[in-house]
């Protein structure tokens, strides 16, 4: 690697103060530190040695935790396509078709977000932050494979600018950046991210008779409207394209229509295991998030004003984006609650809100997105009270 190091050292003066490309220093820095950990040493006073971790390693851990979802998502895009058009093909073909559709979305998200990051880094003279490695991967996983690429680009740009850079960049943002991208798409281009027609890629082919393309959630929602029991609606729905397409097992493993990365609860759980084992994601948020969803599901069961509310509570855990949202979106350390006690409440409320929004929102059966964004806004309030309790303890002590 010496030639690479030599090459970098040769270019360095150009980017340093007084150099020709002085303004682009942080672009150079991003490239340099990506390839080589810097030769910085600790200061005169204070900690003379440092822990082996850095932000890059922490962020890449999240990206790795997302890989199972990505790989399964790629496969499932192909799987759903061939199911819908009624063709039987092998694993390879399904995966290749998925790759053809998903890879461009990933590339566009990284490119669009990366350019915005770079522009802000140059203008504001701050280093390019590695949090973007995660954002660029999260955005593609929460959109359907049929999403037009320009919309993906626009949403990513919007999210990075409005949800992050206007607040001062990584670490200062209030809202989860990837969820903001999805919310932007949902409100700006609802036709491409809601309804029954967008979740399955059909291409030039026509779907088999009886194909509806609905997600499990919209089937459940429809059942609630028509008064049919959700479980029997799920069982009978789309019987023509797959035996028991919406069986509980299929929903758990993820062989159902939906956004690229969010259909498989199993893959999300594998990601959760990676995040928890590495300590990068908060297990408290993950556990309380799932618990909140389940508890509110049970509460809804108790009231059961319609069939959707009467749906078995554990169905909520495997339908839609709940698992993905709780594991990867709610645990974003910057926008989540930052105190340990707060994290319990934060996760729990996300779970509660998700189910409430699902079963009471007349327009859109998915709730995790709005629940996370809403709780992002309330997280500082939760922390405020946790910290206030600490201050109060301190103050009480003073009078003793």
């Amino acid at each position: 690697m010496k030639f690479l190091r030599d090459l970098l050292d040769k270019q360095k003066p150009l980017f340093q103060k007084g150099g020709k490309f002085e303004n682009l220093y942080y672009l150079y820095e991003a490239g340099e530190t990506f390839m080589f950990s810097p030769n910085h040493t600790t200061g005169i006073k204070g900690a003379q040695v440092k822990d082996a971790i850095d932000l890059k390693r922490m962020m890449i851990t999240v990206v790795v935790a997302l890989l199972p979802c990505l790989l399964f998502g790629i496969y499932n895009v192909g799987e759903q396509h061939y199911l819908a058009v009624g063709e039987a093909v092998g694993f390879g073909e399904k995966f290749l078709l998925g790759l053809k559709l998903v890879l461009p979305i990933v590339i566009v998200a990284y490119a669009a977000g990366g350019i915005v990051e770079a522009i802000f880094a140059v203008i504001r003279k701050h280093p390019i932050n590695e949090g973007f490695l995660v954002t660029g991967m999260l955005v593609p996983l929460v959109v359907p494979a049929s999403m037009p690429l320009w919309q993906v680009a626009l949403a990513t740009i919007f999210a990075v600018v409005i949800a992050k850079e206007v607040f001062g960049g990584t670490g200062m943002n209030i809202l989860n950046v990837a969820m903001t991208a999805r919310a932007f798409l949902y409100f700006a281009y609802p036709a491409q991210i809601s309804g029954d027609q967008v979740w399955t890629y059909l291409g030039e082919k026509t779907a088999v008779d009886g194909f509806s393309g609905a997600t499990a959630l919209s089937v459940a929602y429809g059942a609630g409207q028509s008064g049919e029991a959700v479980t029997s609606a799920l069982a009978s729905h789309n019987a023509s394209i797959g035996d028991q397409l919406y069986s509980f097992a299929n929903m758990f493993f993820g062989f159902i229509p939906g956004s690229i990365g969010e259909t498989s609860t199993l893959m999300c759980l594998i990601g959760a295991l990676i995040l928890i084992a590495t300590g990068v994601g908060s297990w408290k948020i993950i556990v309380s998030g799932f618990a909140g969803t389940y508890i509110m599901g049970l509460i809804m069961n108790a009231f059961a004003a319609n069939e959707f509310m009467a749906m078995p509570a554990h169905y909520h855990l495997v339908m839609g984006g709940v698992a993905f949202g709780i594991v990867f979106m709610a645990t974003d350390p910057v926008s989540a609650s930052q105190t340990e006690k707060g994290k319990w409440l934060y996760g729990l409320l996300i779970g509660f809100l998700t189910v409430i929004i699902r079963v009471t929102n007349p327009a859109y059966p998915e709730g995790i997105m709005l629940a996370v964004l809403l709780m992002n806004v309330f997280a500082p309030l939760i922390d405020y009270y946790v910290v206030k309790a600490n201050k109060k303890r301190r103050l009480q002590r003073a009078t003793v």
Partner: protein
Amino acid sequence: MSKLVKLKKGFDIKLEGKAEKKTEAFQPAQTFAIKPTDFVGMQRPKVTVKEGDTVKAGTPILFDKKLESVLYAAPVSGEIVEIKRGEKRKLLEIKIMADKEISYEAFTKFSESDLKSLTKEQAVDALLKGGVWPQIIQRPYGVVANPEDDPKAIFISGFDSHPLAPDYGVLLKGQEKYFQAGLNILKKLTSGKIHLNLDQDSEVSPVYAGVQGVEVNKFSGPHPAGNVGVQIHHLNPINKGEVAWTINPYGVVQVGKLLLEGIYDASKVIAITGSEAKKAVYAKTYQGACVDKLVVDNTKSDHFRVVSGNVLTGEKINHDGYLGYYDHQITLLPEGDYYEFMGWAKPTSSKLSFHRALGLLSFLSPSKEFVLDTNTRGEERAFVQTGVFEQVTPMDIFPIYLLKAIMAEDFDEMEELGIYEIIEEDLALCEFIDVSKHPVQDIVRKGIELIQYS
């Protein structure tokens, strides 16, 4: 009532190069220095000697115009060879070329029975004149104590839990008599108690075995269990407006010796530690000794760093630099000024980490001793990770919120979040484990100064 406090939070940084429990003779240092920069919060140091003057051990050579009664004494007898100043004539070092045979200033000598009848005023006066007062540190702020205060209690941490820390059993061997005498004097300085805090997880050093008249508490757990700040937090926390004093066991011995023998004895045993040390052993020397004789021919390579103190709170000094006033340890580390290809992604089991993010495998070998160099292992970034600082801070404090309050210069928040309870060393582990590589200890001191001088 003595207490047993079990701490779970914290982190032991296990390093190679612990000093063997034997004291070896090294060539004696020729020069010694008092560095005003060792005394945090010293504002206007004033030198009372000139270059060329001769001094005895115990001769006052320095005082702070803000606290004139506290005298800082020469550790050895000899000639003042240099008064080194830096930018804006900031006083950096007063160097003394030592005599072969040390001669001492003669202070009043007390018998053990005399000590009992000493009043507080007499005791304070003796400690101030004898040059041992700077050993007493006050909380909050972690600065040299003001003799006019009446502290609510005096806290003594009887052990050091820092990485590669020396064993007080070795440092204070045979000083039992002076230690007890020191405690007897200190008792006169406070209307409250004296807390002597010992390590539950190891044997009681002989020096503490027979102590009387103090409250002995036990602490158990990983570092920072030995930090006196953490101990105060669990025994009798400091609130706004209160003052407590702390003193190192070595300081207690120095106090005892001054009164029983009538001399300012600055001799001390220090530990030579660190992975670069060929012979990691204990050595006899004096406060402020030049470390060159301890380092020369005692390192494994040429490219190393000498740290006065430990790796968490120490200070980098030159290879012929001077031991810090409060330090009982030097640490020799490899310098880490190298690039590492894909250093942030490579799996590694040879670099210590508190975290377990991808590829950080050190947690698999919890008892392994690591070699750490001075590389920062990454660049400074925004605060992102949450909840980890709390895991290494065994206090009811929110470090991130406190640090942010300091950065925002929000005085009320700082007070309410506990700035009075900490000094740099209490959050030093946060600086070590910080993903975003912030200078946590600098920030803490900045906050303390804001509160102290506002």
